[in-house]
């Protein structure tokens, strides 16, 4: 007859307790050991906080995966340096100018398959236009930011930025490193020349814009506007609206000639081994409830037409076809082909 388990000695009790403790600690890791990992890029700031706290965990739970987010710039050189068959990212989230550069290098797929991302059917046309690689999940509007306590009134046009009364308080960007600055340069060609590609007109306009204070990060421009160092500047709407409720004497102006779009774009890398999950992620980020949460956190205009924002966001963001029609999309493919030449020229224009 087989012996039953013997009496519980102290040694057996301690061994069993240690095993149970180790098992308890290791259980989550064991349970998720086989969970696939989707490697994406993502912004920091409030976007990163909401993604980490809510959006990301919900995606992980629904799709039984791990989301690994790289928020350390620069993304494109790292993707470029990684192997094409084993890219460092599965999904690249960045602005449109970088996405075009990535597409030209074959680092990202130029289009998203609507059969694999059904929510593409509900986005505004700009989100999947021929000016976009992948899909734009949000956009900001680039226009003019101004102080409301300096007596500036009746600002309706881009051309007012050139008014001599803003000498000394005018703000712009280091064009070679900033998307808003690059988009603004193309706008100068439209305002004073034959169109976005009229670089001669753009350069002449930039010369006349001096004196101007230039910064590399949009965050720095926001602070200069808040401190009063700048009274009128090129800025995107979310850089003004995110201070809503803080009683700041700043406002955003949508110029009559139109606002430039600053798109938040997602693309999938061709060498990704997680294509199904990557497409699921893109589709997830286009869900109305996800779009609403992020839009109301960072004041981005959602790409999904079905999103219903709360009243105060709806009033200011681009949430109707009429408002969206004011968006001017930049031809980034054209710009990137000439970037070196443009950078050299603008560096000469704004040399200290």
């Amino acid at each position, binding site marked *: 007859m087989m012996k039953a388990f013997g009496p519980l000695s102290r040694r057996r009790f301690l061994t069993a307790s240690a095993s149970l403790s180790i098992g308890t600690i290791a259980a989550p890791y064991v349970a998720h050991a086989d969970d696939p990992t989707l*490697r994406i890029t993502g*912004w*920091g*700031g*409030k*976007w990163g906080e909401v993604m980490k706290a809510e959006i990301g965990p919900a995606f992980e739970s629904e799709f039984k995966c791990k989301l*690994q*987010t*790289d*928020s*350390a*710039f*620069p993304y494109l*050189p*790292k993707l470029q*340096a*990684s*192997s094409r068959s*084993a890219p*460092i990212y599965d999904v690249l989230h960045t602005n449109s100018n970088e996405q075009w550069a990535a597409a030209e290098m074959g680092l990202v797929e130029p289009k998203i398959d609507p059969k694999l991302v059904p929510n593409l059917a509900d986005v505004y046309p700009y989100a999947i236009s021929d000016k976009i690689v992948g899909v734009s999940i949000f956009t900001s509007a680039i226009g003019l930011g101004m102080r409301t306590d300096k007596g500036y009134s009746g600002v309706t046009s881009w051309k007012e930025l050139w008014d001599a009364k803003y000498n000394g308080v005018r703000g712009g960007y280091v064009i070679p490193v900033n998307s808003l600055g690059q988009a603004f340069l193309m706008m100068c060609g439209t305002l004073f020349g034959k169109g976005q590609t009229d670089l001669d007109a753009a350069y002449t306009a930039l010369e006349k814009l001096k004196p101007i204070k230039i910064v590399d*990060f949009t*965050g*720095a421009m*926001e*602070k*200069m506007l*808040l*401190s009063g160092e700048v009274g009128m500047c090129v800025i995107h709407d979310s850089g003004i609206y995110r201070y809503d409720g803080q009683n700041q004497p700043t406002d955003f102006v949508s110029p009559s000639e139109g606002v430039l779009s600053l798109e938040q774009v997602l693309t999938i890398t061709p060498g990704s081994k997680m294509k199904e999950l990557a497409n699921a992620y893109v589709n997830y980020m286009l869900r109305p409830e996800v779009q609403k949460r992020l839009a109301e956190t960072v004041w981005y205009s959602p790409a999904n037409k079905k999103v219903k924002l709360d009243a105060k966001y709806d009033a200011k963001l681009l949430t109707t076809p009429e408002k969206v029609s004011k968006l001017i999309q930049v031809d980034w493919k054209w710009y990137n082909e000439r970037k070196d030449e443009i950078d050299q020229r603008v560096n000469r224009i704004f040399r200290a």
Partner: protein
Amino acid sequence: MQTTASSSLGAAQQTASVRAPGPARPYGRYIYLGINIAILVFLLAPIAIVVVFALNPTPFIQFPPVGVSLRWFEKFFASRDFMHALWFSLEVAVLTTVSATILGASAALALARGNLPGTRLIVATMLSPLMLPAILTGLALFQTYVLIDVGRPTWGLVAGHTLVTLPYVVRTTLAVLHNFDTRLEEAAQNLGASPLRTFFEVTLPLIKPGVLAGAIFAFIVSFDQFPVSLFLVSPGNETLPVTLFNYLKFDLDGTIGAASVVSIVLAFVVVIGLDRTVGLRSYVKL
């Protein structure tokens, strides 16, 4: 017979011997002090600006400050991202200091004593990371790790930091070895000490100033290292400088100043701690 010159000289000496000595005019000393103060102010003024920014309650840089507030320090210490980055930076800096010190001191000893062929070339190679832009070093290491398919592990980051801090340890240790009297080692060995015992009881205590100076440099350079870390940090394991850089792309408020003040205080604590434990005064001269 006295000549005119000698009589004049004698008269001058007589005059000098009876003239009472006047007060010294230390103009040279004041000028020297003034130059040193100007240099110190030039070096420390940016730190003062950072402290002002960190204590200013407004969410943007403003001078003169409108008040004193600790809100940015609260935000810094309450931020999980910043706290993780701070501890991770410390962890990497300590590991880097240990590895750079052991490798650098060993290399310096081998170079000084080993009679190796091409010593100068080897020394130049070991010091070359100081001459290369660190961002290229970071990118090259990143590509290497990708090629050997190891991802971006913490040991890879420590290796990158060790690469750019090793020259400091090598250089400072070589400096003390240059003046080292090898007869002391010979005497120890003649008296029966083994090579290992000679190294730990004779050589190491005498080269400690150079090794320690190099170790301090290695710690500070690693803690503040940015360009190499930019490519080698992995998601969720970012060093403090990288986290600060990413933060200021989206938010330029006093939290940056608070983080900087904490880094400065940390550097002070390290140096003061070393002075209290090991004693740095006698190691000021190399």
